[in-house]
Each structure stands twice: as structure tokens, then as C-alpha cells.
């Protein structure tokens, strides 16, 4: 069956069986991933997947199901199962009818070009990146490159129907140097234009070289210059916990803070699925609503949570077109650029640490935002505006809202970040966060 037939058949079948709201999504994924370590390709992954999912409501009772047999019989069976599951469940607390279409979607988002997803080109790009890293001073490298085209066909009983392609090229390269030194860089793009494996390799190699022979860092409260990979991790948390689902569940440090100053006036944060240069772009959300750019934070003030129709109804606002059928989610986060060069930001720090990457962010308390995360890769001591040493073995132990409020400067240069640690595509500058608490192992 063709994808539009799958959608139409499933919707009409579910409606006949008693559903009042139905969303059908058919996804075709074509992907090559090349992983490498010690400058050698360790595996080439090749993925070819066709899947469909049904979300429906019977009254206020909800069910979600994916369909593996995409023929008429398989679909019919799945529809019956989904309706049966929903009918037997109690009513959900959050419910609103699906948005009424039809809708017009932005053609810049529905007609995007695919990327080359074959293994030969991907292996070539990887070699290019490794070579640039080595030339810049790396002793060895590791990473992954993913070339992916995902075609999504969505239709709803509300009359929404659309097709879009999500193309992406994502390279993550980590370069190693002398004595536990390492540097990490990325290149993320929706097409070959803007995808630069050499530049990423070079940056990772240069960082690894500059970070040679790191010494154990001293804990204390210092200014922190957070490179794009670190700042994107924190901004990703601001985006994730903007979701009304987490707010409603009492799991968000942003609960009850609409209209409040939650960050420095220097911070503007947007969710923008309409930017065709982002790998997170999408013409529609999971309920078929056309997406739009929205400010989550303007001059440090929290403007909105992220909503689907159901959470919007509960909160008495309009959907922000961020469905997630269960939990609203950000598509693509963007922080407004600052006015300084990264070098100028470093030069204004009297004593601090320049953190180029982090991982393993965990909360002691989601409702307060108390957390810690571990700097990894190149980490530098800044004294009197100059980088004076390479460091290791420090941890940021702080509060996310406190850190957001202490943003003192943002760089004019911004970078797209999406990798193992940051799953929502995020465009961010480098940030200076004053008074950041660094801790270290006691023994």
C-alpha cells in the first residue's frame, strides 16, 4: 500500500470502529552510519525501515499503537486493537479534540532535498575528517557519521494531511592528544552545503593538541566559559522542561514561572521548527498543526511552556504546535547571538574555566534544577583573560536556573549542536556564566 492509502485506510477504519480522534503517521527511514575508532572504520550501519503508528481517542480514552504489517489486513487488525485498548481504559486527565484542518504547510519544509545516504560517500567524509584531525595534531580519533533521510506522512481525522522529508548529515569526531588530552567537534547540516567534516576534524584536533598534558583542576566557584556543546546541553534541558507535560507532572524547574525572570536578560531562547536549515525542522507537529517559531524565553523572561492540544486545553492557552502526542517537545532550539567574539569573552575572565564539552547531566531535584554535569575533552584554566593551563577531573555542580541567571555574555558566533548527549538540534553561542561551582573527587 502507498503511504497515503495507509493513512486513509487506518483513519476511516478507526472512525468506523468508534474512535473520535485519529492520527496516523507513516515513516520511511533510510540511514547509513559509519562509526570509527583509532582512525579506522569499526562498522558501517545500514538501516531501512518502514513503520506506521496510530494514535486515537475513544471519547477521552487514549491509545497508541504501531503497525508492523502494513497490508490491509494488518492495518485492520491494528485499528481494532487500538480501539479495543482505548475503549477499555479510563478517561485521560488531559484531552482536547484534534486541531481542525486542512492546513497549508510551508513548502520550504515539505520539499527539502535528500542527502546522499550511501556508505561509500559516508566513509569518504569520515576519512576526510580523520585526516584533518590528524593534521591538526591529533594522535588518534573516534566518532560517527550519520547520513539519514526520513520521510514522514501524517494524516489526522481532523483533516490535516502532509508529507515531509527530514534530511540530515551528522558528524561527531573526538580527537585525542598527549596525556589524556582530547577535543570534540561536530558538523551538523541538512545538506552537503554547510556540512564540513574537515573543519570539524580540524577543530577536534586543535583542541586535543591545545589540551595536552592536563593537570587535575582545583575545585571552587569560578567563572565558566561554556562552549557550544556544553551550553547546548543546558539549553536542551531548558527546552525539555518547558514541556507542559513535565510542568503538569511536577517534574520541571520551570513550573509556575511563566512571566518570571528565569535567566539573564541576555538570554533569548526560541523553538523554531520553521528554519529549513535545521535538521529539526518540520512543517507540522504530531497533531498536524503547522509549526511556528516561538520565544520560550525573551530577555530572560519565561514566555510559554510547550503545548499540544491537550496540555493547552488544561492550561487554558493555545497549542504551541509542539505535539508529541503524549508529551509536547521542542523541535529545534535556538539561542540569540551575543555581541562578543569568543576570544573577547575569555579575555574578560579574571579567573575561570573554559569548558568545551560535557556529558552525564543528572539532577538531584528536577523541581529545583539542582544538577551536576561532567566536563570532558579540552578544559582550560583562564587567568587574567588568558588560557594558562589544560585541566581535567572537574565537575560542574550547580543549579540550572542559577546558571541561566548568571549568563554574563554570549558570543556572536553560534554553532549547531546535535550529538550523543544533545538530541534536540540546538543553535547556540559560547556563554560566560559567572560564579559557577566546580567540584572534584576527594580521594
Amino acid at each position, binding site marked *: 500500500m502507498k503511504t497515503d492509502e495507509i493513512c486513509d485506510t487506518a483513519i476511516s477504519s478507526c472512525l468506523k470502529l468508534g474512535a473520535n480522534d485519529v492520527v496516523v503517521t507513516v515513516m520511511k527511514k533510510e540511514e547509513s552510519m559509519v562509526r570509527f*575508532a583509532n582512525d579506522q572504520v569499526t562498522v558501517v550501519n545500514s538501516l531501512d525501515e518502514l513503520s506506521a503508528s496510530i494514535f486515537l481517542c475513544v471519547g477521552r480514552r487514549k491509545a497508541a499503537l504501531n503497525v508492523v504489517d502494513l497490508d490491509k489486513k494488518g492495518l485492520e487488525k491494528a485499528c481494532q486493537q487500538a480501539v479495543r485498548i482505548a475503549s477499555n481504559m479510563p478517561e485521560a486527565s488531559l484531552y482536547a479534540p484534534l486541531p481542525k484542518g486542512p492546513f497549508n504547510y510551508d513548502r520550504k519544509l515539505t520539499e527539502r532535498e535528500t542527502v546522499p545516504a550511501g556508505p561509500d560517500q559516508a566513509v569518504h567524509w569520515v576519512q576526510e575528517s580523520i585526516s584533518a584531525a590528524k593534521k591538526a595534531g591529533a594522535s588518534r580519533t573516534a566518532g560517527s557519521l550519520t547520513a539519514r533521510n526520513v520521510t514522514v506522512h501524517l494524516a489526522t481525522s481532523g483533516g490535516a494531511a502532509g508529507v515531509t522529508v527530514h534530511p540530515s548529515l551528522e558528524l561527531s569526531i573526538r580527537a585525542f592528544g598527549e596525556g589524556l588530552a582530547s577535543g570534540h567537534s561536530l558538523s551538523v547540516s541538512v545538506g552537503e552545503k554547510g556540512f564540513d567534516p574537515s573543519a570539524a576534524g580540524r577543530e577536534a584536533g586543535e583542541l586535543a593538541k591545545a589540551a595536552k598534558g592536563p593537570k587535575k583542576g582545583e575545585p571552587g566557584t569560578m567563572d565558566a566559559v561554556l562552549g557550544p556543546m556544553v551550553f547546548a546541553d543546558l539549553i536542551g534541558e531548558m527546552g525539555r522542561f518547558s514541556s507542559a507535560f513535565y510542568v503538569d507532572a511536577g517534574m520541571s524547574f520551570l513550573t509556575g514561572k511563566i512571566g518570571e525572570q528565569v535567566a539573564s536578560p541576555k538570554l533569548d531562547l526560541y523553538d523554531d521548527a520553521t528554519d529549513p536549515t535545521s535538521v529539526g525542522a518540520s512543517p507540522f507537529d504530531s497533531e498536524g498543526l503547522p509549526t511556528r517559531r516561538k520565544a520560550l524565553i525573551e530577555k530572560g523572561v519565561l514566555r510559554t511552556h510547550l503545548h499540544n492540544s491537550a496540555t493547552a486545553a488544561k492550561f487554558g492557552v493555545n497549542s504551541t504546535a509542539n505535539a508529541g502526542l503524549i508529551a509536547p517537545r521542542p523541535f529545534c532550539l535556538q539561542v540569540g547571538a551575543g555581541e562578543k567574539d569568543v576570544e573577547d569573552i575569555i579575555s574578560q575572565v579574571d579567573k575561570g574555566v573554559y569548558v568545551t564539552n560535557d556529558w552525564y547531566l543528572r539532577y538531584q531535584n528536577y523541581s529545583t534544577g539542582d544538577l551536576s554535569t561532567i566536563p*570532558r575533552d579540552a578544559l582550560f584554566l583562564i587567568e587574567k583573560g588568558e588560557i594558562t593551563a589544560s585541566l581535567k577531573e572537574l565537575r560542574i555542580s550547580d543549579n540550572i536556573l542559577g546558571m541561566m541567571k548568571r549568563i554574563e555574555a554570549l558570543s556572536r558566533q553560534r554553532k549547531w549542536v546535535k550529538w550523543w548527549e544533545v538530541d534536540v538540534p540546538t543553535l547556540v553561542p559560547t556563554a560566560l556564566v559567572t560564579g559557577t561551582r566546580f567540584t572534584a573527587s576527594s580521594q
Partner: protein
Amino acid sequence: MEDILEMAVQRARSLGASYAEARYQSDIKESILLKNGTPEATSVETMRGIAIRAIMNGGLGFGSTNVLGRRSVNALVDRVVKGAGAAGSVRKSPIVMSPAQTTKADHIIRPRIPAENVPLESRLEMLKEADSYALEAAERSDIKLAGRYLSTDALSTERTVINSDGSMVHSIVPRVSVHIFLTATLPGKGAMQRSISHGEVAGWEGAERWDLPASLAKETRTLSRALHTAKTFKGGKMDVVLGPEVVGLIAHESSGHPAEGDRILGREAAQAGETYLGKDSIGLRVGSDLVNVVDDPTLTRTFGHYLYDEEGVKARRRYLIKGGIINEFLHNRETAAEFGAVSNGSSRSVEFDREPIVRMGNTFVEPGDRSFEEMFEGVRSGVYIKNFMEWNIDDRRYNQKYVGLEAYLIESGKISSMVRNPVLEITTPGLWKAVDAIGDEMEFTSAYCGKGDPMQGIPVGTGGPHIRLKGIRMEGAP
């Protein structure tokens, strides 16, 4: 299905692959979520497909499809072999598989109460009952449960793996799990949060064993006591007793992960990271004589249970640390070949579309000989950390942090008042070498361990008895 898998292996071999493996995997997961007492959408997710892995010209290729016709699988085999060839063309050293015994086996677990025989609404009822017990306990103990998030999953995994060495393993493994997240508040005292997981390889009888209503009521009362009475923790040098939940996590993070052969070889370097251990670390002392850390997938009912791995290798108990000394690493056939060893059955994959990589099963500290009371005897001043919220560890698995949630001061050998947020931030050898007493009662918990690219969250068990650390510098947190 076996004929299609056999066909795929033969086709890969005929295209020149020196090794080929075909796996059919089906995962059916039924999930129910109760948020603040009311249900969100109930979902049934079926993941089903075929994965092919092949070595060609010394390069490794992996691929998957959920379109299961012969034409589609043949096309997949061609793509995988081509990808492996492309990888091999730029490798200096060829990938090879270590020798392994040929296995023909079935591993079918038949639960006493198959989850599919328990209506979804009955499962929801269990969550609702537990939720109401928690609410009642909160009301009686004068706190608010501002957020209650309860979910349960029933998962059935069926696999058939065939490889070009002649192995064939078929398995059906059911799992049940629950996850609970509570946010408790008390005006003037702020909020505390508790995350609880249970999971077993079992049918619904597993969920019945956990007695969720009673355990949630108890957890709520503990949160209340902590909110009402816990004092600020001042820190200082002291003895530390860690509860089984913390010990299990430490065994997993600070012993299991560092021992993974692929990390040691740098294969995960850009994602899940590397390890402080090297190829030559077998025999290295990292802990006191008392410390034995084991990974054992063969323990029945545990969440990380399996008997044969994704390469058809029989699983067995592995002593990662024995008497404080690094004793064994975790290997699949690829990493074992690099070490001149044989696989110890550590190859796992979470779904059909994920490459099998080196994973843990159930990782735990072996029990010692001290009773619970004896763990505290002789401690003049210390802290008992029963469970935690925040934790993390660096990508070499060397520096870690655990922040206590339910925690008590120890004074003159006795547990005394509750304290808030004691922080243990310590190196891996620093931690294991400080162990001077180990309790005699084991507890297991369940978790999903994240690793790989694309990410694979795989079911694991973690466990241990109480352990005591001597003379640790502790910190307090705000």
C-alpha cells in the same frame, strides 16, 4: 523465519563475506502511564525485523530492515556486505571474530502469569492502587505529593540468531517492569524527589511480588520524614555505609563499564567514552581484598538475564574484580579476538535495528559476612546513604558522584538523624580501596543502561549488599 535467516547468511557468504550472522528479533512492549492519578495514553509498540552482520575484506557491516520479504532481505544483505567492504577497504587491521563453540539451543521462558493474560485495565488498577496508597500516606504524614508518575511495561522479546559458524539460538524472554517518580513537598522545606524502578525477567507474577501499594506508602513516609526532619549535612572525613541500591549502581558504573572490551579498545570513545583500564590491566589492584564484583547474566528472574548472547555464545558468570584485583573483561567475539581471548557471552542488542555490542547483564558486589547491625558497629561518626537521586561518572569511569536521598548520620555505631544531600565524590580506586566491610544480604534492582550509537537502552540488573567505606571526605550540597 529460519529459512530466510539461513538464506541471508548463505547469500552474504556467497558475496564473499568471511563471517555472516542473521538475527530475527521481535519486541512487543505494552506500556501504561498514570500521571497524578489519571491515565495518559496506553501504548502497544511492536518492533520486528531482521538484522544482518557481515565481515568483508576485514571490515564490519551491519544493517536491518523491517520489510521481511525475501527480496528486501536480499537487498539488505547486499547493502551490508557492500558497507562492510567499504569499511574494510580503509582499514589497516582486519576485524576478525574469536573462535567460539557452535551452539544449537532454545531458551524459552514460560512465565507463570503471561502478561498478555492480564488485561491492561487490571495492570492500570495496580498502578492506581499504589498511587492511592502513596496519596494516603502523604496525607497522614502531612506532606503533599505534588507529582506522581507511575508506569509499567510488559515486554516480550523473541530472537532467532543464525551465523555462518553453524550456531543457531532461539529465545523468548518476557520482562515486566515499573518505574515510579514521586515529588514530595512541604511548605518551608522545599521538595524531595524519589525515583524507583523494579524489573524482572518474568510474567505478571513479577509485578505482583513487588507489592507496590505497600512499598509506595513506605517510600512516601520516608520522604515525609526526610522533609520534616533531615538536617543539613556538614560533611567532613568519616566512615560511609552505602545501601544495596547505591552499591549496585557503583558496581555497574565503576566496575562493569570500565571492564567492557570495546571501551578498552576505544570503540566507544566518542560516545559512551573510554575506561581508566587498559588491555594490560588484568591483575591490577583497584580495591581492598574484600571486593568481589561479578557480572552474571545467567541469574534467573533478574532484569539482565539471558543464557545466550547475540553471537550465539553461552553466557556465564564473570568475576570482574576478585579480591580487589581486576580479573576479567567483558567480551564479544570481536573484542575477544583483539585480546587473544574468547568471548564470554557479552554481545547484546536491544532491538532488531541495533548492532550487537559489548554489554553487561547483572552486575553486583558479592555479599560478605557482616549483618546489617555489624556494618555500623565501631563507626563513631559517619553517614549511611541508603539511596540516591543524582549521580554521574566521567567517561573514563574514574571520577564519580553520588548524592544521597534517604540518608542518616551514624553516631556511636547507631543510625541516628536524617541528613539532606550528603555528597560522595570520589575516584574509582579511591572508592573500592576504602571498602572495609561488606554485608551479608543481597538486593537487586533493575535499570536500563545506555550505550552505543544509535543509543541502546538495555535492561540490566544491578545489586549488592551494604558496603562500608573507611575514612572518606564527604561534602554537603545546598
